C-alpha cells in the first residue's frame, strides 16, 4: 500500500507495555488539575479554596471560542491555586484537589469509563450541534497529544464540506500503547464515537487508519465496526504515519495545503481515544476526567497502561508502575520521538498526556556532534519534504531569510531528521529556535 514519502522506522518498543491490560490503580491522594490543558485560551477557576467538589464537577471555564472547560477528577477538597510547569515549558495555573471519601478507582473505573454497551443504532438521528455541544461541555480535546478542543473541530465553518471523518489509530510514536490497548479492549466506544463525530461534521464516510503492527487492535476494531459502515484500514507502519497530514495522504491521497487544515481537503481527523471519549460524553454525559496513559520504558520497573485521573503527578504514575529502575536517566512526557523531557516529577497528567516514557542511560548513549557533510539523509526522511540541514544551519548562522525561503513553518518537529542524522546535529531543536525567532519578530 502506498504511504507518505519520507519517514523512519525506529524500533517501536511496544512489547514493553503492549500486553498490559488497561487498569485503574487506586486514585492518588492529591491531583493537580491544570487550568490549561489544551491548545487555546486558559480557563478561569470557578471554585473557591476548601470547596468540596465531586468527580466531574466543573472547576474551570473560559468564554473564549477555542478553549475547553476542566472538571474535578476526584471527589475531594480544592486547595490553594498554584503554578505548574508543563513538559512543553509553559507555566500554567493548577488547582490541586485533595482526594476525600469514595473514589472512582480500580476495575469499577475501567468499567464505568470504557465498559458496558455502546449501541450504534440511532446515532444518525442525533442533532449535530448537540454532539458538538456535548463535546464542549465534557471538556473534550484531542487525546492524541495535540489537545485541540474537539468541539471546535466538530463545528466546521459554514460553507465547508466535509466528506470524510478520519479516525487516527496509528499510534506511530514508539513505546506508547494507549491507543493500541484501547482499540483491543474497548473498540465499541471508539466506533460509536467515530460515528457521532462523522454525524457532527456531516461526513458520509468514516475511515479508521491503524498501523499494521497492531494486528490484534485491527481485528478487534473490524469486529466492532462490522455492519456499521465504519471502514477499518491497516496501513504501513512507518513513523510519523499518525501525523495528521501524513495520515490523510496515506488514506485518501489528499494533500493538506501548506498552512491549511484538514478541513480544507474535506476531512476532519480525530484520535481513537478522542472518539471513545466523545461517545461517553454524548451517550453517558460523562465529562473528561480520566485518560489512559502508558507508563513505559526500560527505566520503569513494570510498564503499564493506566487509566488515571487528570492531574495525577508523574511521581504517582511512576509509583503505580512499580517505580523507576536503578538506571533510569530521563523521564519523557509522551514518546521518545516527539516527547519532552521533564525534570520535575510533580508535573501533572493533562488531557494530552499520551504516556510517560522513562529511558535509561544505555538508551540515551549519544555520540558527539560532528560536521554536516550534506549527506542528505535528513532530506530523504523528512515527511514534509523540507531540507532540515539548511534550516538548522541557517538558524545557527542567524540567516533568518533563509529559514523562510526553506519553509521553516511547515516543520512539525517530528524528529525524523535528527533521528537519522549521522552527524548528530540537534536539527529539531535548532528549527524550534528558528520558529520562535520568526514568531517573535
Amino acid at each position, binding site marked *: 500500500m502506498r504511504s507518505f514519502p519520507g519517514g523512519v522506522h525506529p524500533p517501536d518498543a511496544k512489547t514493553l507495555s503492549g500486553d498490559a491490560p488497561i487498569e485503574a490503580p487506586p486514585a492518588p491522594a492529591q491531583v493537580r488539575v491544570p487550568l490549561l490543558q489544551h491548545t487555546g485560551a486558559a480557563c478561569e477557576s470557578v471554585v473557591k479554596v476548601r470547596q468540596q467538589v465531586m468527580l466531574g464537577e466543573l472547576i474551570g471555564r473560559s468564554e473564549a471560542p477555542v478553549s475547553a472547560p476542566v472538571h474535578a477528577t476526584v471527589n475531594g477538597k480544592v486547595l490553594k491555586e498554584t503554578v505548574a510547569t508543563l513538559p512543553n515549558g509553559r507555566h500554567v495555573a493548577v488547582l490541586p484537589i485533595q482526594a476525600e471519601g469514595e473514589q472512582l478507582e480500580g476495575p469499577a473505573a475501567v468499567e464505568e469509563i470504557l465498559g458496558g454497551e455502546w449501541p450504534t443504532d440511532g446515532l444518525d438521528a442525533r442533532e449535530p450541534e448537540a454532539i458538538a455541544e456535548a463535546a464542549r461541555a465534557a471538556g473534550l480535546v484531542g487525546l492524541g497529544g495535540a489537545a485541540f478542543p474537539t468541539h471546535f473541530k466538530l463545528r466546521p465553518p459554514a460553507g465547508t464540506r466535509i466528506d470524510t471523518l478520519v479516525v487516527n489509530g496509528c499510534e506511530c510514536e514508539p513505546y506508547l500503547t494507549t491507543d493500541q490497548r484501547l482499540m483491543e479492549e474497548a473498540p465499541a466506544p471508539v466506533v460509536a464515537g467515530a460515528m457521532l463525530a462523522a454525524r457532527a461534521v456531516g461526513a458520509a464516510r468514516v475511515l479508521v487508519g491503524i498501523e499494521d503492527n497492531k494486528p490484534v487492535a485491527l481485528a478487534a476494531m473490524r469486529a466492532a465496526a462490522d455492519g456499521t459502515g465504519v471502514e477499518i484500514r491497516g496501513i504501513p507502519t512507518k513513523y510519523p504515519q499518525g501525523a495528521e497530514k501524513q495520515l490523510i495522504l496515506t488514506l485518501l491521497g489528499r494533500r493538506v495545503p501548506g498552512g491549511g487544515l484538514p478541513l480544507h481537503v474535506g476531512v476532519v481527523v480525530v484520535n481513537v481515544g478522542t472518539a471513545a471519549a466523545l461517545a461517553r460524553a454524548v451517550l453517558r454525559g460523562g465529562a473528561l476526567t480520566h485518560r489512559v496513559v502508558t507508563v513505559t520504558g526500560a527505566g520503569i520497573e513494570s510498564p503499564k497502561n493506566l487509566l488515571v485521573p487528570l492531574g495525577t503527578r508523574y511521581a504517582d504514575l511512576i509509583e503505580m508502575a512499580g517505580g523507576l529502575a536503578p538506571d533510569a536517566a530521563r523521564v519523557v512526557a509522551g514518546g521518545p520521538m516527539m516527547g519532552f523531557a521533564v525534570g520535575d516529577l510533580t508535573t501533572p497528567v493533562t488531557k494530552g498526556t499520551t504516556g510517560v516514557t522513562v529511558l535509561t542511560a544505555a538508551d540515551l548513549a549519544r555520540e558527539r556532534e*560532528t560536521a554536516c*557533510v550534506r549527506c542528505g539523509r535528513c532530506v530523504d526522511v523528512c515527511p514534509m519534504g523540507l531540507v532540515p540541514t539548511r534550516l538548522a544551519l541557517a538558524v545557527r548562522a542567524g540567516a533568518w531569510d533563509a529559514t523562510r525561503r526553506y519553509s521553516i513553518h511547515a516543520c512539525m518537529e517530528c*524528529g525524523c531528521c535528527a533521528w537519522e542524522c549521522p552527524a548528530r546535529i540537534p536539527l529539531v531543536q535548532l528549527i524550534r529556535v528558528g520558529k520562535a525567532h520568526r514568531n517573535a519578530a
Partner: protein
Amino acid sequence: MTPATPSSPDLEAPRLHVAPGPHLVSGGRSTRGMMVDVLVGLAPVLAAAVLVFREWALLQLALCLVSCALFETLFARLRGRGLRGRGLRGREASLTDGSALVTGAILGLSLPWSAPWYVAVVASAVAIGIGKAAYGGLGQNVFNPAMVGRAFVMVSFASVMGAASYVRPGADLSIVTQATPLTAAKEAAGAADIPGLWPMFLGVTNGSLGETSALACLLGGVWLCWRRSAAWRIPAGVFAGAAAAAAVAVLANPASPLGVPHHLLAGSLAFGAFFIATDPVTSPLSHRGQWLFGLGIGVLVITIRMLSNYPEGVVFAVLLMNAAVPLIDRATIPEPLGGIPSADREAAS
C-alpha cells in the same frame, strides 16, 4: 547532568537529565561510517588498479594516503584544532573523521601511474590545505578537495601529467606502452586504432590508476549507492548527460572513432560519476538539484573531450559544477508537502 529535585517525598531523588528530543537516535550511521563506506566502495577499483598497474598503483596510492593524513594533521595543528574533535562544540574532529583518507584514496586513484613522487605530495598538500582546510574544514569546502589537488598538479606539472607521460615505450608492463583510449582517439584515423569496448569495460587499458575499469567502478559505485552513502541520482545524471552529449558529438562528427559506448566507458567518467561527483559536501542536497548537477557534469565532460586540447574532462567538469552548487541549491528548494502558503509565497517574491 544536574540532579532533579522532585518535591515528592515518596520517591527517591533520581538523577534525571533533560535534553531536547528526539530522545533516541538511529544507531547505524556516523559521518565516519560514511567515509568508511567510500573506502570500501573503492576496494574493487583499487583491486583493478593493482591488477593492471601492479606495484605502481600501490606506491602511488600509499604516497597519497600518507601525504593527505600528514597534511590533515599539519593543517589541523595550524588551525589550532585537535585531531580527535575536542575543539569548539566538539565539531572539529579532523583526522579521525576519515575524510582525509577518502581524499587521499580518490586523489591517488586519479593520478597517472607514472606521476613522480612530488606530484602526489604537492597534490595532497593542495587538496587538504587549499581544497578543504582553507574553507574551514570538512563540510565547509566548496570544491571537491581531491579534484582541487588534481587540477593544481595537472596545470603545474603539465610535462609529467600530460597524455604523453602515461606512455612508456618498451616497459615490461605491456599496457603502459600504449596510449590511453581517449588520447588514441584524438589522434586516431579510424576505429581500429582504439581499444575495443570489452577491454575498456574490464579496464585492461592505459590510463589513470582508478579510471581504467568501468566494471570495478560500477561494482563499488552501486554498492555505495545501495548503502545510501552516495546519492544514486548523481551518477545516473552523469551517465545520462554524457550519453546525450556523446550522441550529439557522434551525430555532428560521424567520422569519429568513438561511439556513445566508448565515451561512457573511456577515461574517468565512471570513476568520476560514482566516486568524485558524489562527494556529498560539494554536491546539491535536493533530488532535483542532484539530477541537474549530474547532467551538467556529464555534458561538460563530453564537451571538454570534444572541444578542448585535454583528452579528458572530468576534473574540470566536476570543479565547474561544484561552483554551481549554491546556485543549484537555491534554484531547487523543494516544495514542502501541500505547497507553500500563498501568504508566504507573496512575502518571498
